[in-house]
């Protein structure tokens, strides 16, 4: 015979049924949701071009850079890391690797002809060095200085201008080559320089060199894997004219003397493995090596915590492809 204590109470029964009912409802909802699974929930919308962020409150208002004779043609656009490629496509990794924070974009069209327009790209990076890197590694050969601005940090072409200040890099692209476009982008540059509020414009690593005989506008900063050598990061390069010869110098702050010497030794081995011929050591300046690298004279040295490299002779191609700097 079942004791009273073995019988399930009424309340207990109701609670139990309710819990079971709840579990069944949950199971049905899960089935419904899984059954209606759509890739678009995971960001594979069939049409997913140009996701535009709303204008952030703290970002610059690019309409204040409006050049004379132009009108704002559309709303300001902003892009973060995950949708940067929607605006600049395959160039996005270059910026992300250099410490990209946000892109602000504004279009302006000429008041008397909306086929004539300027596009202003303002890249906010996490550091001055990051901004300088994306500016310098994309610098166009054949560009000219912008009057009144330091050529190491600015240049213009026939249809645009590029400028770096603090942790901001600005690129202005014009739809044509014309006086109107030129006046427009120069006006933008002036306004940007006046209005952008940055703390400090220094780029660490540029104060260690003598810019006296430097070829104007040749300084570049490679953030990672310079020369295809993974251990070298944040490498600066610049061209000098030394007794009528062109010399390219590279330098990097290794943060300690020991690290600099270790890096230099490994880099010498790296070049030798790639076919360079070691011509011997150099006394003084922390020691170093001279190598013959397929007709180029290579000098690898250390000076305190700095790694340095100099290259003389031959025809080099500039750029960075496959991690190796060649020119």
């Amino acid at each position, binding site marked *: 015979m079942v004791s009273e204590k073995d019988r399930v109470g009424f309340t207990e029964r109701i609670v139990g049924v309710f819990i079971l009912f709840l579990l069944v409802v949950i199971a049905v909802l899960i089935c419904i949701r899984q059954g209606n699974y759509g890739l678009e929930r995971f960001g594979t919308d069939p049409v*997913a071009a*140009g996701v535009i962020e709303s204008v952030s409150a703290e970002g610059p208002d690019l309409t204040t850079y409006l050049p004379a004779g132009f009108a704002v043609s559309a709303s300001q656009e902003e892009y973060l890391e995950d949708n940067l490629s*929607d605006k600049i*496509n395959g160039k996005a*990794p270059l910026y992300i690797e250099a410490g990209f924070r946000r892109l602000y974009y504004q279009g302006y069209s000429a008041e008397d002809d909306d086929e004539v327009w300027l596009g202003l790209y303002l890249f906010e990076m996490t550091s001055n060095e990051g901004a300088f890197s994306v500016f310098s590694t994309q610098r166009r050969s054949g560009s000219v200085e912008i009057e009144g601005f330091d050529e190491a940090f600015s240049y213009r072409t026939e*249809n*645009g201008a590029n400028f770096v200040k603090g942790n901001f890099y600005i690129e202005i692209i014009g*739809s044509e080559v014309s006086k109107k476009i030129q006046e427009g982008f120069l006006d933008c540059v002036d306004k940007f320089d006046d209005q952008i509020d940055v703390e400090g414009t220094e780029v660490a690593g540029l104060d260690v060199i003598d810019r006296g005989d430097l070829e104007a506008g040749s300084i570049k900063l490679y953030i990672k894997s310079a020369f295809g050598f993974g251990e070298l990061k944040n490498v600066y390069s610049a061209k000098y004219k030394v007794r009528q010869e062109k010399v390219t110098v590279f330098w990097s702050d290794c943060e300690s003397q020991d690290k600099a010497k270790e890096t230099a030794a490994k880099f010498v081995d790296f070049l030798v493995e790639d076919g360079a011929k070691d011509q011997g050591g150099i006394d003084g300046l922390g020691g170093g090596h001279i190598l013959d690298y397929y007709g180029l004279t290579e000098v690898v040295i250390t000076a305190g915590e700095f790694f340095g490299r100099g290259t003389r002779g031959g025809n080099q191609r500039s750029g960075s492809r496959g991690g190796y700097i060649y020119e």
Partner: protein
Amino acid sequence: MSAEPDKKLERREFMIRATKTAAAIGAAGVAAKLLYTKESPSAKLSEKLVSFNDFSVPSKEGQVLSVVKNADRIEGVNKAIELLGGIERFVSKGDTVVIKPNVAFATPAMLGATANPELVAEVVRLCYSRGGAKKVIVADNPINDPASCFRLSGIGKAATEAGAKVVLPKADYFKYTTLEGGELIVDWPVFYAPFEKADKVIGISPVKDHQRSGASMSMKNWYGLLGGRRNIFHQNIHTIISELPQMIKPTFVILDGTNVMMTNGPTGGSVLDLKRKDTIIASTDLVAADSYGAGLLDMKVSDLPYITKAEKAGVGTTNIDSIKPKIVT
């Protein structure tokens, strides 16, 4: 009754219930393990996978690749197509032709980031006048806003004035596809609708540097058919580019090396990024076209891994001499 038997009963009841609970949890765990799958969720069950038709024409010896050096694009493209047998070889009377130019960016033609609008218009006109096409569609799924891209590049206006119908992407124009044997194009949305009833497909693209892949030429042009968050493929750029010409086999392609973007690709932005090479390439073999195009960028085939990947997959050949190209300087 004494308290002791009641306590025993409760303990026994507790043990029974605990055992049943543990058994239920265990059964749920076993069921979950059996039902678990590592594969990502598939497309909606209601979506049928599609695949592009093969739009290629029978190969003809000596009429696979043509290269014409001419500062005038229009003269150049006419000559290049003529050397492959003329548009009549490719387009038949009554055909529906889809032209897929590179319209990726909202930039003017002079910056070389998109196909040249006059070139696109000329090919449209050839399809009608000499090919006898019934309908010519011009379509692309750009990176930036489609309407802006077609407008600012000039391609929309040029194509329309030449008599083509410009088709911009819309959500219901996309279907899901899987490339057989593909690593990346698996259950992926593609811009399919304009191609569904096409008889012939022609690609038109400029020769450009590309920050990620090294170059953007005739094979990369088909990236514009991918939908969704296609930028994830940038991590595996050479594989995705090599899969594109396997996904769709066009009738022929035109590679415009008149004003080549030598640096800062794929968007460029300055006239200083460009260099005149005054070359038009037409080809039924996309690997051969890109192999030749690499030289215009002062690169070698070995600098562009996607080309050899595509060759290994059977898309075409990097041995240009073997296909007896017609080169007119």
